[in-house]
């Protein structure tokens, strides 16, 4: 029984028909229990997110402690200048977006594959074992990961260079000097760390699928492959869309640990490892300036905002229910 969202109701000019407002009020009354359920969450959002949003003005202020946040003099757009005037402005934006794009594609594919395959295993004990191991990388801190990666890749005592180079007969590589390899290294490290997390989400979605679909399909003689492509994937598609949209909303942000600590802050790697967040961090070593870091955050938010508006609009065109808002 499709009911139109309030904004979509055509407004009739005839007065006899209940006005848009009245329909709305009636609906509110009908759904008041549901709306009441949302109050704790809404209150939390206001406290945790909306009240502190006044801090955005820091991006436009030259803060001094005596006058405080509101009293400090305005600085116009000066705090944004370091981002756009830098010769790296394009590079860091490109790196951030491309890495996130690669993460979305690679992580989603691997996670989906895992979720689909785990679903095929009927042995509970084994499933449980696999699932717990996949989640392990997620709980190791990035700093520790950085040490581990270093122990594999450094030239002095390394595993890859000494062992694998011997086995496969390639020359040893000076990993922390060669920017070209790092897109691969970082994508692999990131996938290793976050695929388990994603897979669990997709697995939960697959488990939620009504078993009757499969029973019917088996009776029809559909192969496992067909069941996967015709039933499972279409039914979890909404989940995939939502996850992708959510990833797009953070496409201008980057995990500081991954891009700063894992490459060991090595200068020669910066062309392929410098992202907006690491750029800001390095800039702030010289001068910890809240105005400038807030400005960078605003820049990231604004770009993400327009990207997500676009993506959400596109999704809405195809399937209204799967859009984020």
């Amino acid at each position, binding site marked *: 029984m499709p009911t139109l969202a309030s904004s979509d109701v055509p407004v009739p000019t005839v007065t006899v028909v209940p006005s848009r407002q009245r329909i709305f009020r009636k609906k509110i009354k009908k759904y008041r229990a549901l709306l009441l359920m949302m109050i704790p969450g809404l209150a939390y959002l206001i406290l945790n997110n909306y009240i*502190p949003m006044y801090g955005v003005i820091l991006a436009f202020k030259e803060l001094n402690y005596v006058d405080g946040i509101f009293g400090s003099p305005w600085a116009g757009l000066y705090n944004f200048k370091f981002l756009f005037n830098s010769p790296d402005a394009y590079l860091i934006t490109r790196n951030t977006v491309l890495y996130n794009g690669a993460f979305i594609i690679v992580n989603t594919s691997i996670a989906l594959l895992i979720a689909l395959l785990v679903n095929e295993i009927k042995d509970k004990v084994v499933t449980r074992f696999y699932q717990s191991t996949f989640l392990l990388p997620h709980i190791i801190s990035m700093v520790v990961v950085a040490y581990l990666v270093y122990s594999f890749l450094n030239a002095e005592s390394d595993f890859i260079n000494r062992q694998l180079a011997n086995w496969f007969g390639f020359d040893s590589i000076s990993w922390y000097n060669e920017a070209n390899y790092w897109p691969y290294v970082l994508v692999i490290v990131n996938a290793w760390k976050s695929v388990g997390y994603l897979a669990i989400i997709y697995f939960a979605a697959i488990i939620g699928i009504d*078993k009757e679909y499969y029973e019917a399909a088996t009776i029809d003689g559909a192969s496992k492959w067909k069941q996967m492509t015709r039933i499972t994937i279409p039914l979890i598609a*909404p989940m995939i869309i939502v996850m992708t949209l959510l990833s797009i909303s953070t496409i201008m942000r980057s995990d500081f640990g991954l891009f700063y600590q894992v490459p060991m802050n090595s200068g020669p790697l910066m062309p392929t490892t410098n992202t907006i967040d690491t750029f800001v961090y390095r800039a702030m070593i010289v001068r910890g300036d809240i105005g400038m870091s807030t400005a960078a955050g605003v820049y990231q938010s604004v770009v993400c905002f327009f990207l997500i508006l676009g993506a959400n609009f596109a999704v809405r065109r195809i399937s209204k229910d799967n859009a984020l808002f």
Partner: protein
Amino acid sequence: MPFATRIHKPLIHLFFLLFSVVSLMPFVLVFMVSITDESSIVQNGYSFFPSKLNFASYQFLFNDFGQIARSYGVTILVTLLGTTISLFITALFAYPLSRKDLPLRRTMSFILFFTMLFSGGMVPWYITYVTMVGLKNSLFGMIIPNLLMSAFNVLLMRSFFANTIPESIIESGTIDGANELTIFLKLVVPLSAPIMATIALFNLLAFWNDWYNCMLFIDKPELINIQYLMTKTLNNIQFLVMKADSSSQVGELLAKMPTEGVRMALAIIGIAPLLIAYPFFQKYYISGITSGAVKG
């Protein structure tokens, strides 16, 4: 078809075994380094098969056992409390959003989603919590700020509700005259075990791993959680490395920092209980999923 499946099975297992090894190996390595003799680390780097074992790192850390035990207590309490409240609030917010005919649905979704994009930054956020709510040095300082309800989890749950709970079930409830809360608790929740368990797990991990709130809001040693107790050493090292060029004193401080074995032991102590508790949790998690699946 049966033949094809027979071939598939070993392949699938092989794939997963490989994947498990890749996931597990670094973890084992961290553990091995934490029990390797320091001279051996310095000589040979990290190794799965250290030439000399030594539990000195743990002895060094457990010197202050009282603090570690207390911090574990704080973490467990915060995690249990936080996970429960968080799951509750998240579900209550997500479920109405999944109802297609809810008035203000799009507005609410947007209000929620907008918080993922824009933030006022750490400073006003901190000031709000400290001055308006008074969370400084309170256990709730490690529960409420940023952790209590993640927009990401809400949207995840909303999608699950929207796509998995058949509308017919809700309609049948309405026809029976049940109110919305009853429908939610009696009909929807039991069908949503997979997502509930997943979100609970995510919350659990988030609360267990969080050290940032503890760093900001807690000054009293008796309220420090295990993750901050363990992470701060790594943070200190990272900060000092960054400042190393600027003062000769920093070099001395760095040289005095705990050894690599201790750093790895810190990582192990931070997550070990989680690993021990995980299988128990998972039992519940899997059974939750199957019961949900059966009913579906």
